[in-house]
């Protein structure tokens, strides 16, 4: 069983407790207009070409064992700091079989596992995978179905059904809201998010002004254009 990963990054400081490595899984069913990891959207291996002509291959297939071995090289640092591994993307839940296997390998070594997900996955997958993690960052992007469809290309009801499950499944979680100027950063949206969270933890992520930077390297245009 192999999984396709476009980056593993050490010492990610915003992806959970302690010192962590984040695995960015390649491929996502959504197309959020503000996505700052466009190389995580396609499931295919792509080439990024920098301005100076340097080429970087995005996407590498790993067996769960090989990736676990690589991640566990830092197990000492993770143990010392109460850290672990976070799976992000792309959408990690789009590669459930691989995720199931690697999480169990990490668990065997006592490594804390977190997942950051859009929640855009079949309920059966979500319910199978989520309880295998120690912590979940569940994205909440928009709460209006039409707006969700327009900005992400997906159906909100899929996400809401999974969130309903998340609230009751007992795995610790936090909501994450990427604040996008002109899309969901107005007072009414903020109030709606707070009401939706209903006392659960919410992290608001400020808009990444460099979000569009990687699109030209893939020969694409940033859908949001210039937002400052």
């Amino acid at each position, binding site marked *: 069983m192999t999984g396709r990963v476009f980056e*593993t*990054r*050490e*010492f990610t*400081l*915003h992806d959970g*407790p*302690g*010192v962590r*490595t984040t695995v960015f899984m390649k491929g996502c069913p959504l197309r959020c207009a503000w996505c700052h990891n466009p190389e995580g959207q396609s499931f295919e291996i792509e080439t990024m070409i920098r301005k100076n002509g340097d080429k970087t291959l995005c996407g590498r297939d790993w067996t769960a064992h090989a990736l676990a071995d690589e991640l566990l*090289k*830092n197990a*000492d*640092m993770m143990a*010392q*700091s109460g*850290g672990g591994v976070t799976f992000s993307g792309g959408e990690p839940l789009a590669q459930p079989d691989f995720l199931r296997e690697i999480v169990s390998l990490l668990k065997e070594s006592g490594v804390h596992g977190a997942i950051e997900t859009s929640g855009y996955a079949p309920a059966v997958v979500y319910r199978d995978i989520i309880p295998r993690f120690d912590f979940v960052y569940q994205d909440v992007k928009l709460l209006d179905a039409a707006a969700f469809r327009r900005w992400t290309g997906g159906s909100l009801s899929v996400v809401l059904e999974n969130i309903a499950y998340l609230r009751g499944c007992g795995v610790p979680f936090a909501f994450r809201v990427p604040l996008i100027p002109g899309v969901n950063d107005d007072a009414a949206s903020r109030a709606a998010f707070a009401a939706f969270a209903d006392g659960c933890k919410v992290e608001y992520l400020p808009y990444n002004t460099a979000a569009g930077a990687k699109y030209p390297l893939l020969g694409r245009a940033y859908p949001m254009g210039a937002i400052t």
Partner: protein
Amino acid sequence: MTERIKSLLDRIFDKEQAKFRRDVDWKPLLDRLIADGIGDEARARIGLEEMLKAETPAFMDGERLAFLRTVREIPDLHSDAEMDARRAAGTAFGEKGVVFNLTADFAPTIRDGLGSRLSEMEERLAQCRAEGDAAGIEFLENAILSAKAVLELAERYRAEAEKRGLDDIAATLAQVPRKGARTFHEALQSLRILHYAMWCEGEYHCGLGRIDQYLYPYYEADAKSSRLTEAAALEELEEFFIACNRDSDLYIGIQQGDNGQSVMLGGVTRDGKRAFNALSRLCLKACGELKLVDPKIILRVDKSTPLEIYELGTELTAKGLGFPQYANDDVVIPALQRWGYELEDARDYSVAACWEFLIPGCGMDINNIDAVSFVGSLDATLRNLAQRCKDAQDGLKYEAVEKGFLAEIQRRADELVEKYKHVEILPGPFVSVISRGCIGKARDISKGAKYNNFGIHGTGIAVAVDSLASVKELVFEKKLVSLSVLVSLLDTDFAGRPDVLVAAKAAPKMGNADPRADEIAKRVIGFWGRVFDGKRNDRGGIFRPGTGSAMYYIWHAREVPASPSGRRRGEPLSANWAPSLDVPVKGPVSVVRSFTEPDLGPVCNGGPLTIEIHDSAFAMSDGVSKVAHLVKFFIERGGHQMQINTINRETLKDAQKHPERHRHLIVRVWGWSGYFVELDREYQDQIIKRMELVA
């Protein structure tokens, strides 16, 4: 921060102290010294006397700790022609030739007063006269006059303060520095004067040492007797730290900010007990509030240091100060012992200026006397081998390349040993008065102290190791290119062979926890650690190899074309002990892992792992703790020294365009923090380049 401190701080930033300054034409003095054939020791004394006579007592509004430099330049006491003649006659000098890069033994003189030193010297002088010890007489006569010159200026300051109704200052100066300090405030004033006087005598890179240890008794006594609340102590300390920035723009360095005003905190006491105390904590707090480049803080830690203490340090890192630098007692103390330092002294270590370990008060080590260029050594080796082997790689093995490289390192090291066999240091009678043992021996510190070792930096270690790994892979394993073609490509900057450049960049690199590079590093560092074994200078001292670069990382980069690691022509080297600049590393955890693989004890002259962290790391409240964990991880893996820069590339770029908007932006350069906008472009660009691979 109190209103008074805030106002003192603002006025330092506005450089208000500059209005008190004037220029003095010192040429006539030098002419007279030469014409009269005055000897070195008397010259040093006359220089200090004249300098202090030319000083005018000056006070900034609201200050309670007096003394500020009013004469811009100190006198030159030797002409270039005189120095050249001595060099031609076979004498080597460290940098400018004077006593530098040291920390005096401030504590006894703060405690007893300069008056006590004077009595001791008078007594010793009588003895020397009785014994007919001419050298002793010469030293003591000059040292006595030097100390008197300092006391005379202090008295002028006192009288002027009294005249202006600055009763507070006048009262303090009625006690110190002539008599021993009785309070924390008096101790700080005394330290301020002694330190100031060293600079006036011509010493530079004057460290402050372990102030949390030697000032602690005053702090503790004041606190116990309720003379001093914690808030008041903080205010005192903050004023002292601000005072360290009053004259610092006059202090000599390669770049502005490179002035060696280091403060060492924590660690263990001379008898091995935990030394981190309430005053250490207060020092860190004061730095965090002031956000100034001076003094530069170094924090001693070991594997038993609790995370909480690291966090006090990384809180400063989060503020972008580029310090504290961390030094690992578990590695440094045994390393110093192996080099012949007594255990009690080794436990008392501080740094000379940036990071070269030094024992305050009794070390006259010249810890940065020169450097071996690792990139230059490899370049020479490859050329040599390529010429001998042409294209006939048959028979040539990678091992021969590495062996040749190490032999070249040895050859260059031996050259330095020869070059610095006989080093003279120009005397410093006043600094001798406040150093351990000089009065007893009746000899100037420049003639030798308890420790007289020389330190040699190693520059471009990571680029050299990466280059070896690349040669191994490209030439010997993949056989992509022959050695002689590779060498010619270095001269043409890889022209016409983009494939070689791509392969070179993709070859194993230090910083990725990749054994293919790290094993080479272990062998190279292992060799470097032994390269000076058995070698001595004529002061009886040894040569200490280190992983520091000082400014040589800029200088040595100019001496080589492109590097086999894929470093392009003209690109800088990494400073100190750090990954090559263009290397995409997995992250700081792997960097720490790679750079703690070699045994760093034998290369403990100094030279920290230097890593950059993006300022967004501290956007979340637990960033401080996570970075603290990273430092702790480094220490627990046997790292010797580490420093962290917190910066943002965009901010640095903007500061180049609009320096006026970023006057207070602080960066860690090589072993010190400076204001980014005050650096030369070359140094600025190197720092920006370090940031390129940091998210």
